[in-house]
């Protein structure tokens, strides 16, 4: 019994090592002097010094974070309510609505992004931050809906019905009964939405105004000439920053689900 628990912990530890191996390498390379990521390692802080004077990377990183935050809020709200409706109600065409979530996931973003470019151009939305937001939210929505739904399927409907029978109105039922139950799903959906937006290249690339580039756009376009470990430096700062923020959040809020 104890052996099994220890094996479980070891497994979890190994998976975390696997997940963080490239992240650690990324961070280590931001302190490596070679611009070509050559080994052996040669400690240097020059990439951080370069970063301090590189306004292009910093403004792009800030813009990416702001866009991703806005996308997270919008996509999580819309996606959660859609997932709730798909869970609660049976109606003709429900299967179709569920299947429709797959095209944006299955069709490579390159094609979807190109399609958005032509369509937004044709209907006059044009380019700019609103267009970028519209595109990012749309790509994040299916992920939020699927993830929230993965939590909802194990929700006991009788709880909602009982609350309603006791006279609670639908909004109160949602707020007091359903949302607390699906909170872990909503949080996971929001984290994925942030990741989808924060790493989204194609849509930003096609829909952002010249000069308004986001971090991924900067990275992808600089690859032709070769990006420098400055990119690693800024990525490291972002990861460390979000890790600190998340641990603070985890300290004060509970969203892992309780019984």
């Amino acid at each position, binding site marked *: 019994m104890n052996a099994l628990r220890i094996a479980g912990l070891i497994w979890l530890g190994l998976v975390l090592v696997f997940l963080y191996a490239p992240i650690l390498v990324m961070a280590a390379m931001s302190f490596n002097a070679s*611009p070509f990521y050559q080994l052996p390692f040669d400690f240097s802080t020059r990439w951080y010094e370069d970063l301090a004077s590189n306004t292009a990377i910093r403004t792009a990183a800030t813009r990416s974070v702001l866009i991703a935050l806005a996308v997270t809020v919008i996509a999580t709200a819309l996606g959660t309510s859609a997932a709730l409706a798909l869970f609660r109600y049976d109606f003709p065409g429900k299967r179709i609505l569920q299947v429709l979530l797959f095209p944006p996931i299955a069709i490579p973003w390159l094609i979807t992004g190109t399609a958005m470019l032509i369509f937004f151009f044709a209907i006059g939305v044009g380019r700019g931050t609103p267009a970028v937001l519209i595109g990012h939210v749309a790509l994040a929505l299916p992920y939020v809906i699927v993830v929230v739904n993965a939590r909802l399927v194990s929700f006991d409907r009788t709880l909602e019905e009982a609350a309603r029978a006791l006279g609670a109105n639908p909004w109160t039922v949602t707020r007091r009964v359903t949302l607390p139950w699906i909170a872990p799903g909503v949080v996971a959906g929001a984290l994925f939405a942030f990741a989808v937006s924060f790493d989204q290249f194609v849509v930003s690339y096609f829909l952002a105004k010249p000069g308004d580039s986001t971090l991924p756009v900067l990275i992808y376009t600089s*690859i032709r000439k070769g990006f420098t470990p400055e990119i690693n430096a800024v990525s490291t700062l972002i990861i460390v920053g979000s890790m600190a923020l998340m641990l603070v959040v985890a300290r004060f809020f509970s969203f892992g689900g309780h019984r």
Partner: protein
Amino acid sequence: MTRHLFLSSLLALSATGALADEIRVLNWQGYGTDLGWAVEAFAEATGHSVVHEYFTSEQEMLTKLRTNPGAYDVVLINAAFTRQARDEGLIGAIDTSGMANFGTVADGFLESELVIDGAVFGVPWTWGLTSFAVNTAAFETVPDSIEVFWDPAHKGRVSIRDDALEVVQFGALATGQDINDIADLDAVEAKLAELMPQIRTFWSSENDWNQFMAAGELDVATYWSGSAARSADMGLPVEFVVPKEGAVAWLDGLSIPDSSTKKEAAVAFIDWMIDPEFYVGWDKEGAPASANAAAADALPDDSFNKRVLGDPDVVARVTFQAPVDDATREKYLALWQGLKARQ
């Protein structure tokens, strides 16, 4: 001193009328026009500021021009695409009379695809070669033949760029054919099929190339001349080779979209881009060869562009790339994808 000349000539230009404009340039990232010091000098002299947008392939550049009329004032177009861009009405003829530096552009480049029926649709800017570079640590003597790619001694240490047109033209050189008129495509395919087992990986950007070469994964890989100069400058042990079989040359021009509303500022910017003073500064950071004879002459004798590309023997071996129509491009892509899919 020359800087002074440049500033005064630009001041004279700007005095003729135009207000300070913001011009938008569409180019590859890190390809000359977006050098910080150059843009600042231009802004200082003319008052015009420069904003950049980048593309990652020629097709994407054309798409951006098609879908965003009026958004760009200067665009970099490879000579193989200039005629297509003109035929689609994307770019207009350029009035070169106001360009102080146009007079010294090498005559040969004015007979290129950039000048159509006597009208300049792209100002010849830079040119270079697509050939290959070797890791000098892996060779005692630098090879002089393209056959080194097929040499069993370098099996698994070879790379070519993942680009159908480049690959097929490479195969044409290896089979002794004209890159612009390949008569025996089957021979090219057979030759490339023999090459596949030799290959370690394909590269797709200068970034990949540098990293793979720096990690010691490769002995020999196709490369571009300007990039090779840059990689060598950054300390990689590489040497660019123009083999006896020849090499592919390309020419890039700066064009002005027909829809631009700031043509005067665009002309001033292009004039600065072909200015010898700008070019000498750019060459220090690794530039392709200049199409402006005066600019090429102004380089120090030991610079890569003067040493290698200025050699008449080398120039005699290169063939400039002609425009390639869509049907041919698709045929090459099908051939290349077929080869890759069977790995």
